[in-house]
């Protein structure tokens, strides 16, 4: 405050103001001393706008939760919870949508599939191999001891009728479509991408793939029709 000679009450402040130690530490009061031109002195007790440090000190000193603490915690909980809830739709929108889920089943007519032939039908955008196996292939697939298999499964557990093998035609390594009736096993499958070899039961025999060709859910609607899905 600069002194002004024309002001009716020109004051010079007595510095420094003395903090009132009796204050409670939250709303600080100052004892201000003023000296008038005629020499009279006036002392005023004045509430001061709290400094940042004082607020912080008051907050840390308070031994009970204050109203502000409750606001901070409540806002934080709502903020984190809200962010989590808001994130989920943003993540889940990438999962398969209703039209994709609705395209659930496919029908295949197997009357014209000759013995030894494998046909491909499409289900959920994936190729399904339907193989009409020969007795020789069935016999070879059933003769393999389980101990030789990477992903042990009996041929019986992989078919509903011995002459019909229905598998998802996607290599369990990285998703390529294996070649049918290819590779070292008769009636087997060979993946050209990274060299996985499957037998006539669609079981992984060697190469990088970890699992047998997967089995789709299917049933025989009649002797000549299969419903997949």
């Amino acid at each position: 405050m600069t002194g002004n000679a024309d002001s009716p009450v020109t004051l010079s402040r007595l510095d420094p103001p003395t903090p009132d130690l009796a204050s409670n530490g939250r709303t600080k009061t100052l004892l201000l001393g003023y000296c008038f031109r005629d020499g009279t002195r006036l002392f005023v007790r004045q509430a001061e706008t709290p400094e940042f440090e004082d607020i912080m000190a008051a907050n840390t000193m308070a031994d009970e939760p204050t109203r502000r603490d409750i606001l901070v915690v409540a806002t934080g909980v709502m903020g984190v919870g809200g962010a989590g809830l808001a994130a989920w739709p943003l993540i889940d929108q990438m999962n398969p949508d209703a039209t994709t889920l609705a395209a659930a089943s496919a029908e295949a007519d197997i009357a014209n599939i000759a013995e030894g032939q494998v046909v491909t039908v499409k289900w959920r955008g994936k190729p399904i191999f339907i193989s009409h196996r020969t007795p020789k292939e069935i016999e070879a697939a059933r003769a393999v001891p389980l101990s030789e298999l990477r992903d042990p499964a009996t041929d019986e557990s992989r078919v509903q009728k011995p002459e019909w093998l229905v598998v998802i035609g996607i290599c369990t390594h990285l998703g390529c479509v294996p070649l049918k009736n290819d590779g070292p096993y008769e009636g087997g499958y060979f993946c050209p991408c990274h060299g996985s070899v499957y037998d006539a039961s669609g079981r992984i025999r060697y190469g990088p793939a970890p699992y047998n060709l997967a089995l789709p859910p299917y049933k025989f609607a009649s002797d000549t029709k299969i419903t997949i899905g």
Partner: protein
Amino acid sequence: MSGNSTYVPKSRVAKWFESRLPVGGLIHSSFVVFPNPRNLNYWWTFGGILSFMLASQIVTGVVLAMHYTPQSGLAFASIEHIMRDVNYGWLLRYAHANGASMFFLALYIHMFRGMYYGSSKSPREVLWLLGVIIFLLAIVTAFTGYVLPWGQMSFWGATVITSLFSAIPLVGDSITTWLWGGYAVDNATLNRFFALHYLLPFMIAGVVVLHIWALHVHGSNNPAGIEKQTAKDTLPFHPYFTVKDGFALVCFLVFFAWFVFYVPNYLYDADNYIEANPLQTPVHIVPEWYYLPFYAILRSIPSKLGGTAAMFAAVIIIAFLPWLDSSKVKSAAYRPLYKVFFWLFVACTVLLGYMGSQPPEGGYVIAARFLTIYYFLYFLVILPLLGRYEKPMPVPPSICDAVLGKQSQAAAADASSR
């Protein structure tokens, strides 16, 4: 992006603007008077080349997006529409497709330069990490971009790479389905890849700003691998390095233009001119050349999880380079043994790339296994041990001495030969 700006705006408009947003001073201090080590060689011009290529990719990409249709039934035809009907569409697409290759070429040179001269070491570790983040973003960007033409390689490349995540135990299949938005790569996948391919380059640009910021805190490393100390060690960015960067950029663009105009499909797979067919896999799936070393590592390990883990590890391990290389001396110029192992490492990555381009059979797989072992040995064993056991050559006391010392030696040799 640092230093005390000596920039004084001249015109009244510039003064008015500068006092409100001092961007002129920022540019002036960062790219005009910024003191660069005076001994930078042409290997240091690839940062500028990369900045240009990023801008070029964004410009051609935004324009291509005006004509492209990200819908599985229409995407393939819209690419041919761009090639045949859109004015200069052929040029824009070839510049964009080959531009990606040029970006990676410059990026790999930039990274190898950093490794050779020890640029990742203290105090530039964060700079290096930001560079690795740019590399990762560039990998994802190029991959999502390659899917967009919806050819056979696009489709099966997308299938193979997204299936990598199915190797993760327990949640792998859910993650893959989530990435696809279905039970196979399909229209939903194409849509999201297009959205990401448009987004990521701008994220790269953001990290590039941080990269340059971090670079300008301590300034460029240099062929001597010692810090600049006095003004005698440096030259101002302009005109000395604007000219050098500019000249290198023009030479690089000549090379780029040769690809665009003379062999635009040399780096492209012919199978990608066949429309995507979800029921038939091409006989031989090969990624673009810049992924081949990592692809070779993936295939060299006869286990799905192991191969996938090794491939990701091969990329991530680069981030740890500043802490794996234990030598106090930065530049390979003063590290006789490191130099040998470094060039073996370069040869190793190039050979891995070759193995990745070959069918996964017989000798190729065996060779790729040995190369994979050297790749990891280099980072995990050779670099940590070399710093301890190698005896480096004497390092000059300053950049100025490194430059002038060489000159006086050359002068002496010149005089004696006369």
